[in-house]
């Protein structure tokens, strides 16, 4: 019996050694396909506690992330913005491939928390309220940038970042870049390319580039010839002093 047990252990070790190339291949295939990106390190251990870390190690990252998301939602109902930021950080660490978690974390911070900070009646100093507002917007931007690093194969977070840059930071040049990146993905909504052009038109020094970009879209046909696009094109034609013969001949004037 002892001999059989020793033989079993020896065979197990031989099999374990023989199967290592297959395990390594699977691991590299998984990483190439954006699987198993969560780093189960001491930082995560501090965030989720011992039992949470043990569960994450055992392959239960997603249920823990869902439970923490519910906790974050409760924190939102109590408007505990700081606690929410911490929980969002943990959830996105546990599930770095989940677009809704990144997107909604950024939205809560850049939109809800930043507005709440500006309307904080307990803070009499406007300068400090403004500083808190900017910090939350920056936090939202940071979520989206980290989300993009973890999801380089998806367009959604580029779109969300572009909207944040446009609406919260009025950084039209950077917003144009993000809309363009989103538009370059297959399956991106058609408005991404149009919005890139609109933002480029507001970016000093890029008017010509904006005109060429929007003109290309215009030439694609009726689907792209929306009133906003025609208006921006006409405005650019005036600003760039495009000769009358080269201007668009659209029959639907919209002077607004």
């Amino acid at each position: 019996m002892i001999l059989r047990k020793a033989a079993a252990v020896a065979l197990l070790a031989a099999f374990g050694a023989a199967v290592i190339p297959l395990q390594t291949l699977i691991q590299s295939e998984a990483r190439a396909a954006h699987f198993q990106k969560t780093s189960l390190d001491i930082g995560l251990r501090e965030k989720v506690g011992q039992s949470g870390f043990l569960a994450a190690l055992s392959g239960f990252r997603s249920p823990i992330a869902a439970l923490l998301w519910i906790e974050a939602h409760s924190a939102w109902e109590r408007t505990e913005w700081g606690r929410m930021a911490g929980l969002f950080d943990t959830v996105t660490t546990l599930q770095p491939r989940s677009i809704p978690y990144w997107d909604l974390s950024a939205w809560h911070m850049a939109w809800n928390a930043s507005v709440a900070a500006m309307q904080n009646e307990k803070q009499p100093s406007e300068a400090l309220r403004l500083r808190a507002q900017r910090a939350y917007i920056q936090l939202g931007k940071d979520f989206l940038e980290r989300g993009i690093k973890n999801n380089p194969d998806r367009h959604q977070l580029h779109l969300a970042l572009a909207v944040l840059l446009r609406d919260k930071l009025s950084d039209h040049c950077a917003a144009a870049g993000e809309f363009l990146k989103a538009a370059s993905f297959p399956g991106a909504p058609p408005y991404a390319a149009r919005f890139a052009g609109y933002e480029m038109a507001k970016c000093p020094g890029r008017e010509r580039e904006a005109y060429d970009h929007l003109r290309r879209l215009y030439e694609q046909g009726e689907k792209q010839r929306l009133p906003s696009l025609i208006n921006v094109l006409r405005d650019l034609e005036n600003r760039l002093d495009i000769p009358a013969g080269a201007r668009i001949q659209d029959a639907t004037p919209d002077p607004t």
Partner: protein
Amino acid sequence: MRRSSPTLAIAANTFTELVRQKVFFFLLVFALLVIGNSAFVAKFSFQEQFQMLKDISLGAMSVFSSLIAILATANFLPKDMEDRTIYTLLAKPVPRHRYLLGKLCGIALLLAAAVALMSALFLAVLWLRESTVLAETRAQMAGAPPVELAAAIREVTATTFNANLAPGIAVIFIKAVLLAALTLFISSFATSSIFTILMTAALYFIGHLQATAREYWLSGADVEWWSRILAAAVAVLFPDLQAFNLTDDIIAGTAVPLALFLNTAGLGALYIAVYTALAALVFQGREL
């Protein structure tokens, strides 16, 4: 009589026995969890709802299937010895390896039924939630242009179901059968079911760290020699269970390449075959 019939007979008997032990009552807990979760998440946005429903349901599916695999397998050998059914069986021309194989097949059958039932329940709840969200979307966008309505509906349906859920569920099943085979190997030399359960639970956790140990060993990091030997021992002796954790990322919408799925399934089949063979080797020499 066909050669495989004793194995099939034992498998069928094992399955029937486990069903009689009311193993499927766990489905009530699963149903409560999934339906309760579905009702609770109704206040969230539809993206959050579907994400959390999948997170909790597939997580619970993985927990339940792993528990059934370990507990059912750890229990059968001590129980058969206590009931003395094993002596009656092995007194007949049934080789020991066929007895083990039949038992494992019975448990695999039970796991397949359990995973299929849980999947059906999960998909039904998901479909019901999708129908509710679609009805709400149609009502909210009653006056919107058809193109916008179609885009909104497409967004909802794309968030709910995707083809990758199928390989995700298949991998949960493969991992559960692998755990059953590992438990079978341990129970072939264990003296009690408690020992088998504790050992398998420990191996379960170590197995999830095997990939880290393997990477550490193969990276050739400049560390103490004993540290490298320890990492090598873990890499060689324990299964890589982390390779079977694809659902976390599938839920998040990551697509599973066919090669990755086939290699993972192949690795699972190899582990199952080797652990069963080793269990047979050890069990062959065991005094009953």
